[in-house]
């Protein structure tokens, strides 16, 4: 399986008045063709910056990006913006957390979906309208003809996200970045959107990067998972391997903190105490050590390297969990 | 205040410096060793820049331009300051209360704002001056000080609906924030909600647009003078421009001097408004 996107040693730094902020610190990740890869982490872990940087969407004179990102064999880092832009839509597409702000509030839905078709694929107005109707039907919008005439505010959050997805898949991209696509939605709508994305991925043979703070969302919707903490990947594995054989105490803590409908916990819910380290002043050792219940002296002094445990399972911990330990 | 001054770039500093100089001149102008602005020096009419005794020269009447600029700052800035402060305060108060109350009051206020805004500034100013500061009896002389007051009222009417609408719009976005609901749920009175939560959040927008309005009003004062209804016989930048309008081609510098001073002041006030907005806006100010 070849990779549609390869990220090698990607580093993203922001120069701020408080100092240099290293948001992404040497991330290496492959997105295999047609696969779904989850990037999981808390707010501030660098997951969104990683995905934006991989797409070349970070601009501004205070951003430094180094390392390599290849898409479809072509290097994106260092490429002029106009050249990167060629890949958008037809190669790479994206959907965001808040479909209300991502859509233009004063233009009709039909126009916004058709725009990509007309500009990217050079379709005539009539063909684009017909294709728009098909796309809206594909993403499960009832009565596409009526929906095309509506403005974004006339649609529910779930329907707006479906419109965003229609825009994203309009030009049959090879890779879809979905940044917290369901966080702003009800659980019922979240389930529908995730199911829709899975179906579209299978039909279009499209790879997907699902960026989320919720391990519960990636469990049934991805083939691979990368867990990010303080700008680094701290654990990475095929999804079933990760959940069966967790190595990082951080991943375990994330999993345990998810509220579930199943057993009611006795007493207090398990939590991850403390917060992410200050990105301008990171500790010398493992970034998670101050919050880790298994931490020892070495964790606070030496930065753990990424260790390969086989089966494509990588982790960054001096004292990884033993396999059966997680069934506690 | 220190937080406001830090982080100014060179251009903003220059603008702040220019503004401070103008305000200083407006205050101390009469005490400076300058010729009387209304006293013609017949020996030296229409002399150029850097003439002895007239640093900025004189116009064709022999009026000293520097003295007129310095003493005119007093009138022009006072007109601008008073009409923007009064118009801004009234406009903000009306805009905030009407947006907070909603309903019929709000609809009426909004309609009135729109009607006034639809009348061009100068037409409105002309009409008000015509009503308040002219007399059908040519023997009655209207004093320059009365004209100044009338022009202030006219320009206040120009500023009021502009800032009123800004305040109304800003209020509408803030009253939907949950901290306003929270304040009501803790039993806070409407008056206190407006004073503690709405006003402090709406003010930054008012300040910055207020600075822009200072520029607009200074220009409007000049334009009214040009039309013959300004402080015609008085001492103001507008009056200087109107006096020399007819002889621009013969004594160009007598036009350039007041226009340059006026333009620099407008630019400075606009820049300071922009700067203030970026500093007071929390989201921008954070980075």
């Amino acid at each position: 399986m070849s990779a549609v996107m390869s990220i090698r040693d990607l580093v993203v730094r922001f120069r701020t008045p408080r100092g240099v902020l290293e948001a992404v610190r040497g991330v290496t990740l492959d997105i295999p063709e047609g696969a779904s890869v989850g990037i999981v982490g808390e707010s501030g872990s660098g997951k969104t910056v990683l995905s934006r940087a991989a797409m070349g969407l970070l601009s501004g004179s205070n951003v430094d990006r180094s390392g390599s990102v290849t898409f479809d064999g072509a290097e994106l880092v260092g490429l002029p913006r106009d050249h990167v832009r060629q890949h958008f839509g037809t190669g790479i597409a994206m959907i965001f957390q808040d479909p209300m702000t991502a859509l233009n509030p004063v233009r009709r839905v039909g126009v916004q979906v058709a725009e990509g078709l007309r500009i990217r694929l050079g379709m005539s107005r009539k063909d684009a309208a017909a294709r728009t109707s098909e796309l809206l039907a594909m993403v499960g919008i009832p009565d596409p003809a009526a929906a095309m005439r509506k403005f974004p505010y006339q649609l529910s959050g779930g329907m707006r996200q479906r419109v965003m997805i229609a825009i994203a898949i309009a030009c049959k991209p090879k890779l879809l970045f979905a940044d917290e696509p369901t966080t702003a939605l009800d659980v019922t709508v979240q389930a529908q959107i995730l199911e829709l994305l899975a179906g579209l991925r299978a039909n279009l043979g499209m790879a997907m990067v699902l960026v989320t703070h919720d391990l519960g969302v990636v469990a049934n919707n991805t083939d691979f998972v990368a867990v990010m903490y303080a700008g680094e990947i701290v654990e990475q594995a095929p999804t079933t391997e990760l959940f069966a054989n967790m190595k990082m105490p951080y991943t375990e803590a994330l999993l345990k903190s998810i509220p579930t409908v199943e057993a009611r916990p006795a007493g207090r819910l398990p939590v991850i105490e403390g917060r992410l380290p200050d990105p301008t002043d990171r500790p010398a050792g493992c970034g998670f050590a101050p919050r880790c219940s298994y931490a020892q002296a070495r964790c606070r002094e030496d930065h753990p390297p990424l260790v390969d445990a086989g089966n494509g399972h990588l982790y960054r911990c001096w004292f990884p969990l033993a396999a059966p330990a997680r069934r506690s | 205040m220190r937080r406001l001054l830090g982080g100014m770039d060179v251009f903003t500093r220059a603008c702040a410096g220019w503004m401070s100089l103008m305000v200083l001149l407006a205050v101390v102008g009469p005490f400076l060793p300058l010729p009387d602005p209304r006293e013609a020096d017949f020996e030296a009419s229409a002399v150029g820049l850097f003439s002895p005794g007239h640093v900025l020269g004189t116009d064709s009447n022999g009026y000293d331009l520097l003295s007129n600029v310095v003493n005119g700052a007093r009138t022009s800035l006072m007109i601008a300051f008073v009409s923007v402060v009064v118009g801004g305060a009234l406009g903000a108060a009306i805009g905030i209360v009407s947006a907070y109350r909603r309903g019929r009051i709000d609809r009426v206020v909004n309609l009135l704002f729109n009607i006034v805004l639809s009348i061009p500034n100068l037409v409105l100013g002309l009409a008000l001056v015509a009503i308040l500061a002219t007399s059908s009896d040519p023997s009655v002389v209207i004093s320059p000080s009365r004209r100044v007051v009338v022009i202030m009222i006219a320009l206040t009417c120009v500023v009021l609906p502009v800032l009123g609408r800004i305040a109304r719009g800003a209020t509408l976005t803030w009253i939907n924030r949950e901290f306003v609901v929270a304040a009501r749920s803790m039993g806070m009175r409407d008056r206190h909600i407006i004073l503690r939560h709405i006003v402090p959040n709406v003010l930054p927008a008012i300040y910055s647009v207020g600075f822009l309005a200072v520029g607009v009003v200074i220009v409007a004062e000049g334009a009214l003078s040009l039309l013959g209804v300004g402080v015609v016989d008085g001492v103001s930048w507008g009056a200087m421009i109107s006096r020399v309008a007819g002889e621009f081609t013969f004594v160009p510098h007598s036009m350039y001097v007041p226009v340059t001073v006026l333009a620099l002041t407008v630019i400075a006030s606009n820049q300071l408004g922009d700067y203030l907005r970026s500093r007071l806006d929390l989201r921008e100010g954070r980075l």
Partner: protein
Amino acid sequence: MAGTGTAHLRGGDAVLKATDVNVRFKVPGGTVQAVSGVSFDIMRGETLAIVGESGCGKTTLGKAILQLPPPDSGSVVLDGTDLTSLSGEALRAARTSIQMVFQDPISSLDPRMTVRNLVAEPLWVWNRGSEDERDAKVRELLDAVGLEPDLVLDRRSYEFSGGQCQRISIARSVALEPAVLICDEPVSALDVSIQAQILNLLQDMKERYGLTMVFISHDLAVVRAVSTRIMVMYLGKICEVGDPEAIYSRPAHHYTSALIGSVPIPDPTRRTGRTPLRGEPPSPMNPPSGCRFRTRCPAASDRCAAEEPELREVSPGQYVACHHPRG
């Protein structure tokens, strides 16, 4: 009377009892029935969870309890006083017994105020205590919500993360020591890893200040850990109400079952086994006849269109408004 009825009310000394509450909104093109004939009671120390999708009326109901705005009809009785009969000063004073925590932690704090003033504000409004006493109270409250007073007092809300803002918000909401705390989606804007912290904090505050809570959420998983009673709403009506154990293990309403089935299970080897709910709720301006859920219900029959189901007890302490409850 679909999804209405009062069979689930328990009598006795409820702290808060709402009877037949209706809230309508006028919108361009018609009237929205946001809350239709909802009744509930909460005993002292209970946590009632109100659960449903966006637009089911749960937030409107929460605000109607606070009389923001008051319901169009029905009564909301707090400790023997009908809030809907109050106005002016009496209502202003009564509101302090019910406080609210909002969904958006950023929007619920005035960005121009320091944490000290934010938390002291309710005390200031009611002129409680001297300056020093208020300061001591603010410190106590911040300490109770797990913030270090000396580090946070003079900072403003935009310097804090969402979870920390929610802690400040909670401190403010209990400053007047209300009888009832209404939490409207207090964790749905937060990372999963922070949600549990805030849920634990709410439990602590409940014990410490003897609160009775209403917890509004769209997510049955979040509600599970904190609630002692669950009320599921759909399009302004009650579907199911009762004891959490019964509802989670044997949901009787098809909508409750679908809500439970929508929660992702953090285990790739297991699927929920329940099919997700199709479509979206119909327009509340023109709700379906009979049972309002029938257009999306797998078990709908002709009877559901003709006749509105009324709440009835299906197992001890579990009430459902459905003609064909799940076995």
